[in-house]
């Protein structure tokens, strides 16, 4: 199985020596292969749950989000197009969208009250508890994140891990309207290019 967009590019074996081929597992899952899907789950569930938890915060809700996302992944596995990206990106996009939908619908009422400032602090990005899980890949990602400017990183983390819109991010960071989206994009571009991923 060719790696269409290896993560990271040009570095075939980043951390785990026997990383399963997610593209193949997804294709088999699309045919109804539950064992393949179980493998797919095992290979990605920690990241999916970690992402869901970052966004929705509440552990029980995060599990619900992860479960919804995996069901969606199962249901729509045939729609994954390897020409357009990696299986991981496709899956994490689904998880992220579910998580964001959850927080936005939950907060829809309060958000209309025009209070964008949230009491909660931005998610700390260097929680030492995570160090135990630190893989080589995680280290590379952290290093790449470190190459972002502080405002790029802050905007990107508020959008991605916080689940806020770019307009909300601009308000939270006291940036002129319209500039947060640029920060987010620039941050992603830098991350992409530093990590050597992307089409």
């Amino acid at each position, binding site marked *: 199985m060719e790696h269409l967009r290896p*993560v990271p590019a040009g570095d075939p074996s980043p951390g785990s020596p026997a990383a399963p081929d997610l593209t193949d597992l997804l294709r088999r899952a699309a045919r109804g292969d539950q064992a393949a*899907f179980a493998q797919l*789950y095992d290979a990605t569930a920690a990241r999916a749950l970690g992402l869901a938890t970052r966004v929705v915060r509440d552990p029980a809700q995060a599990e619900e989000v992860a479960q919804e996302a995996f069901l969606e992944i199962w249901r729509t596995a045939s*729609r994954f197009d390897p020409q357009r990206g990696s299986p991981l990106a496709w899956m994490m996009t689904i998880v992220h969208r579910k998580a964001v939908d959850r927080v936005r619908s939950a907060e829809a009422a309060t958000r209309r009250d025009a209070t964008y400032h949230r009491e909660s602090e931005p998610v700390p990005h260097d929680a030492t508890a995570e160090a135990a899980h630190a*893989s080589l*890949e995680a280290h590379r*990602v952290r290093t790449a994140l470190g190459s972002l400017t502080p405002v790029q990183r802050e905007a990107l983390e508020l959008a991605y891990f916080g689940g806020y819109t770019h307009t909300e991010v601009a308000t939270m960071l006291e940036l002129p309207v319209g500039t947060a989206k640029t920060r987010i994009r620039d941050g992603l571009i830098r*991350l992409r290019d530093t990590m050597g*991923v992307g089409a």
Partner: protein
Amino acid sequence: MTTTPGGRHGGPSSGDIHALSGAYAVDALDDAERAEFEHHLAGCEACRWEVDSLREASALLPEIAPISPPPALRDRVLAEIATVRPLPPEVPAGSRAPEPADTVVPIRRRSRRLVTGLVAAAAAVALVGGGVTVWQPWDDEPGQEIVASPMQQVLEAEDAERYEQTFPDGAKATLVRSESMNKAVLLTEDMPPPPEGKVYELWLDHEEVGMVPAGLMEAGEHSLMLEGDPATALAAGITVEPAGGSEEPTSEPVALFPFDEA
């Protein structure tokens, strides 16, 4: 739905809408913006490419915050999927093969191309045809009340550097780069439209990486904000590519702009 303090000015210019790609990739648009951007996305290959590539980047972020899921979650997921039928594949007009295509999409790491060689090649290539167009780079940027459009900000940046190239037929291409903003804009004057079925593709030449796609300029467009990281690029180039663009240059550049060292 949220509203920006100033209200959303109707119909963002194309420059603005491209700039939503990052926010779209990480679900940071409100519903109206999302609908608008998806409408744009349907017709903008460059943005589709960019969104896909940015999602590759964002998908790396969960790597730094994994949480071991409880076994019960696995049980629930596997029990649930057992009761749900996977959707059949979509089969839109011949675009989806049953197996992933054998063609491997080239990855981005490529050997560095020698800028000097490209300059020579560029100099040797003359543009054919001679359409007459009027250069109105700001035409599509109607009065933006609050802030200058991203393109204008680059053009007016204090550290804006201009690189001009004129062609034998009188056409002119100007690349304006702001290192501090990490942005670059291409402006063209009297540039003939690309041949039928082709587009002009922009590139940024990065050390040890090679040519990285930086956007497509379709027929009728006279200005373009480059994607990527112009600040760290060695040069920008333009090639003629098949419609939809290429992953890497398939023809000699028609123009090349080696950047001054910082």
